[in-house]
């Protein structure tokens, strides 16, 4: 599986990453080799095998009663936000290219 430069750029867009020319080229080679390696899974017939999404079979849905419990204060919850204003998180404009 050889990934093209366009495919790498598309993946980067899906993952919300911005790659420079050199990075994209290097990643195309490395990711292609890793995908080649993982494709050896296809040597195995798994048509009758169910997937194991997690390993504790007795734990399928875990329910609890919906009772309010302790939670972080607004101040604590926001303390790590990179930009704040009066108890809110600041973000740039969602649409349009003008700086806020």
């Amino acid at each position: 599986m050889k990934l093209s430069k366009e495919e790498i750029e598309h993946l980067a867009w899906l993952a919300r990453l911005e790659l420079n020319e050199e990075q994209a080229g290097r990643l195309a080679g490395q990711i292609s080799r890793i995908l080649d390696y993982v494709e050896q899974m296809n040597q195995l017939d798994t048509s009758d095998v169910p997937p194991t999404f997690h390993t504790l079979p007795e734990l399928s849905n875990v329910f609890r009663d919906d009772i309010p419990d302790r939670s972080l204060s607004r101040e604590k919850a926001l303390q790590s936000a990179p930009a704040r204003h009066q108890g809110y998180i600041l973000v740039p404009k969602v649409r349009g290219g003008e700086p806020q």
Partner: protein
Amino acid sequence: MKLWELTAHQLAAAICRGETSAAEATEAYLERIQAVEGQIEAYLTITADLAREQARQVDARLSRGEQVGPLAGVPMALKDILCTEGVRTTAASRMLENFVPPYDATATARLRASGAVLLGKTNLDEFAMGSSVENSAYKQTYNPWDTSRVPGGSSGGSAAAVAAGEAAFSLGTETGGSIRHPASFCGIVGLKPTYGLVSRYGLVHFASSLDQIGPMTRDVRDCALVLQAIAGHDPLDSTTYQGQLPDYLAGLEEGVEGLRLGVAREYFGEGLDPRVGEAVRRAIGDLERQGAVVEEVSLPHSPYALAVYYTINPSEASSNLARYDGIGYGHRTAEATDLEELYRRSRSEGFGDEVIRRIMIGTYALSSGYYDAYYLKAQKVRTLIKRDFDQAFSQYDAIIGPVTPTVAFRVGEMEDPLAMYLSDIYLAPVNLAGIPAVSVPCGFVDGLPVGLQIIGPALSEARLLRIARAYERSHDYVRLPQLEVKDNG
């Protein structure tokens, strides 16, 4: 004997009996860190003031005759991927350079409640992605047995700190071998518990169906003691096991007489350094002489484990790491004019190469049209790998073999990411199956430690520790490497 040379259980007992104090133990460790940290670089953050305050509280309680926890006054180090309230937690990433968690991980909180004293946070590969700490965004940690070599990873800072006498014990985390690998490279004991035994609440998420927290210690008794403190159900992690747990210390000395051990044939194939294989076989012979029944067993799908692992791991990572958007916490770019640009720039500036590589692979494996061929296929082969173990455990109490194919390699030696991935070959199957395994030191090759791996069925930690202890007590290996000590006086 110096205080930092004692094991955690010896130190806890000495503090409890009043032979020394938590404050003295903490000062001894802070001095030791001062003396050797320049060569080892195990820590990203050292919390000396907090450690002194916690030690003072333990001593105050003891002097009032109050009940204290089983690790009271014992200085520890935590991998810097476990949240510590009020103490910076970086995951060795620029993304979290200034992140100070507003809460403790459950494992952190339980150790605090046991009376352990926090010396600091240890280095790792960024977001725990790697096997050498070369992927840390901050610095390289060095192997205390040979400082030109890596400590293993990703919990390399934790392993190096424990081996160098810079902490009495540590917690590491595993997704695909990240406790056992550095434990083996640094000559300490490392346990990866059953998936769900230890709460993941407050662990920076990597691959959620694989992640687990575990002890990294000087000896097997310490390992049991620390496991006892952190294991058990937590309402804040719905995947934690809800049943009763055994006393991990109770049967530790019962030996291996009559236990059935399967030697994993596939773990002795091509790629294994024959000298490592020889050390491991000697250890297995020793357990046999102690009365264990030893036979060869096959895990036929284990050659596919890394292919499965390096599909599931980046897939789950790409999904989990989508949370780093430069908004709620973590790095935000200085220059973005709109929201899309803010996401893309913040993420690209904040993440290192290996993290970007895994996010890209995972995004590919989960993307429309490829999901069935990669992620779903991997989860099906995962079933086959798990069945291999189920089959083996219908005949054997535990499976034994090497931890890693080689001893610690040199810093900079492994340039190819795929070659680095292959060093997890005997480790990843265990994480995929969700079962426990322990690495215990079993000798040296060229002066570098070798680990013996003991793997058991789900929730068999007590048995694994008992086997590890049977091996450990019959050998008197040097536990602490000789380090040149910088004289500050």
